């Protein structure tokens, strides 16, 4: 009995002790730097693109080490895997998460907030946050949710379609033209069964609904049913002429780029409008590759960085995020030869000669420049739309139920 109570008291103290260890964020930025310098930060991000991986491994990692002594450890995990990991950690009652920060997007943001796995608000603490273009609605809202400092914008992109100008001199620019095209060229078009593909479906859904404003705001079941029915009708019309007769779909843009290069399909796509430039430079796509957007519009969105609620190294992670939104890192990231990802900063209001440098970033050779496609940009929809589309795509189109 005596031993039991001693054990009980010891456990009580140890759990209190553990609580003290976790998630204490110093008040001022100087304290954050003091706590975070020289620490190890664990980040989870999508690692499906070699250029992005190179940017992180060969630019960001060494820079962080050099400037702050921070050791950045990157592990692979896309949106839903991150949510799944954090959910299972919460269910297991883990006091400290195995990751500190992650690269996320709309529907992941939504699900993470559902399970309260994000730490925040925090972006207000970061010094470089003042350079962010908060007036831009594409940055300040993520899938129709005001971000309220719970995640930090990292980059900005618009969905575009990639094709080979040699094989397809006149690509279809509307949904009707696409239908005509695939009927004339069966097997040339497909949609990847993941984030990028769903973004295209969302773009089409908005087009069917007649524009941005119709589906704006919170998820509306009736509107979804009404317009998605027309969307599935359209997809069903496309299906027999799609790659593999629409019976199976590729797992992502990377696979589709290779198929495009090998002549298996005529169209690939990417959430990043600058993708075609870095893929041509990498030798994956031929120099005759070009990209464009549908005149019915494609979705433009930002991607973000978030902190885990139960991270054991919030100061370090904050320093990493602060670096990633610095003019330096954003400038490097925007180079077509590096990543070609749009910046989230107000480039004209940056100090020193940054505005000049940003203006002089080599233009895109194979992709249209941002200005010309932004009039076709559409706002992201509420996350439930994505979740429903993903589900229904599997049920209705893939499994044919």
């Amino acid at each position, binding site marked *: 009995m005596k031993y039991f109570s001693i054990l009980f008291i010891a456990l009580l103290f140890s759990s209190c002790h553990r609580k003290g260890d976790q998630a204490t964020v110093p008040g001022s930025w100087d304290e954050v730097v003091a706590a975070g310098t020289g620490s190890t930060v664990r980040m989870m991000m999508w690692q499906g693109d070699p250029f992005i991986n190179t940017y992180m491994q060969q630019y960001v990692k060494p820079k962080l080490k050099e400037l702050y002594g921070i050791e950045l450890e990157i592990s692979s995990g896309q949106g*839903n*895997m991150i*949510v*799944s990991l954090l*959910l299972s950690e*919460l*269910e297991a009652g883990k006091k400290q998460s195995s990751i500190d920060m992650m690269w996320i997007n709309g529907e992941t943001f939504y*699900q993470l907030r*559902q*399970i309260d796995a994000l730490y925040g608000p925090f972006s207000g603490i970061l010094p470089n946050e003042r350079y962010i273009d908060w007036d831009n609605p594409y940055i300040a809202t993520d899938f129709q949710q005001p971000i309220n400092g719970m995640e930090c914008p990292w980059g900005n992109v618009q969905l575009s379609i990639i094709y080979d100008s040699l094989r397809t001199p006149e690509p279809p620019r509307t949904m009707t033209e696409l239908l005509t095209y695939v009927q004339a060229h069966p*097997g040339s078009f497909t949609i990847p*069964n993941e984030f990028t593909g769903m973004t295209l479906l969302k773009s089409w859904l908005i087009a069917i609904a007649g524009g941005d404003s119709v589906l704006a705001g919170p998820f509306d079941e009736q509107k979804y049913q009404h317009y998605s029915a027309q969307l599935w009708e359209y997809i069903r019309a496309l299906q027999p002429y799609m790659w*593999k007769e629409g*019976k*199976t*779909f590729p797992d992502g843009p990377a696979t589709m780029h*290779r*198929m495009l290069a*090998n*002549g*298996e399909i005529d169209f690939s796509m990417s959430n990043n409008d600058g993708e075609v430039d870095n893929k041509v430079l990498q030798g994956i796509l031929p120099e005759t590759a070009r990209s464009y957007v549908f005149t019915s519009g494609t979705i433009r969105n930002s991607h973000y960085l978030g902190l885990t609620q139960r991270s054991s190294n919030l100061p370090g992670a904050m320093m990493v995020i602060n670096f990633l939104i610095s003019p330096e890192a954003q400038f490097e990231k925007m180079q077509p030869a590096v990543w070609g990802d749009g910046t989230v900063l107000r480039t004209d209001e940056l100090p020193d000669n940054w505005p000049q440098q940003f203006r002089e970033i080599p233009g895109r050779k194979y992709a249209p420049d941002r200005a010309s496609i932004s009039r076709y940009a559409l706002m992201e929809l509420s996350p439930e739309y994505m*979740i429903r589309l*993903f*589900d229904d795509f*599997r049920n209705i189109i*893939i*499994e*044919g139920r």
Partner: protein
Amino acid sequence: MKAGKSIAWIVFVLLVILPVSASLVYAFLYSVGLTGLLSDGYTIAYWQQLRTNSPFFFSLLYSMIIAVISIGLAVCIALWLTLRYGTTLQRRNISFILLLPLGIPAVVAALMTYQLLSPSGWLSRLTYAVGLTGGPDAFPALINDRLAVGIIITHIILAVPYFTALFRNIYRQEQGDLLLLTARNLGADNGQASRTIVIPLLLRSAFPSVLMFLLFVMGSYEIPLLLGVSDPRMLSPLIADKMFRFDLLDKPLAYAMLVSYVLLVLLLNMLLLRKNARHA
């Protein structure tokens, strides 16, 4: 010695019996809503969904058929190699090469099959070069196809070396040469002897291994992940997908599938043991 034995048993229970049993209990509780962050309380809705509105049973059937075809063909090929080239296989260097695939992981095997049989792979380029096909689209779909051709081929290549070695082993242990000789002396010809004596002998002794391999192929993960279609999916990719992807509310259903799968494997294991005990 007594103490040693008890320690051994304690370790056995801790490392072999406990993990799976405890996990099975948790999985079951989750599937009926008694645990889990987003659960609403006890419900049999997910088990009902499993029965009526999920791809589980079809996936199970699909996986079993693929397993039977793969192992069936692999066994035939292994028998052929053993009986026809028995003595040649004894040579160390030949046996070494033939056993090489044992050291190849599923991921690499899938990668190989992909590089060889994909519409823009080696075979397709060869047929294009000799004029048999007109391009990637003209090449038949051998991967990412419903008939799972690529998947079956990959599993066969991985299974044949094992069964060849196994048959060779059994043949030697049971003195197959002697049996064949005896049969021939009694008037049978080579074909008859093989068919009525050797092959049944090999198959009966190897049955536990065959059953085990069927289970392996049924539960295969990496190969269908890389070479399969979106629908139908084999069991492991299906369940892993449900568990870790997208809809958080699907987790109880995923756990229900897991529990069902484990029960099935336990059942087949009992069958395996019974047969093994008889022919050990």
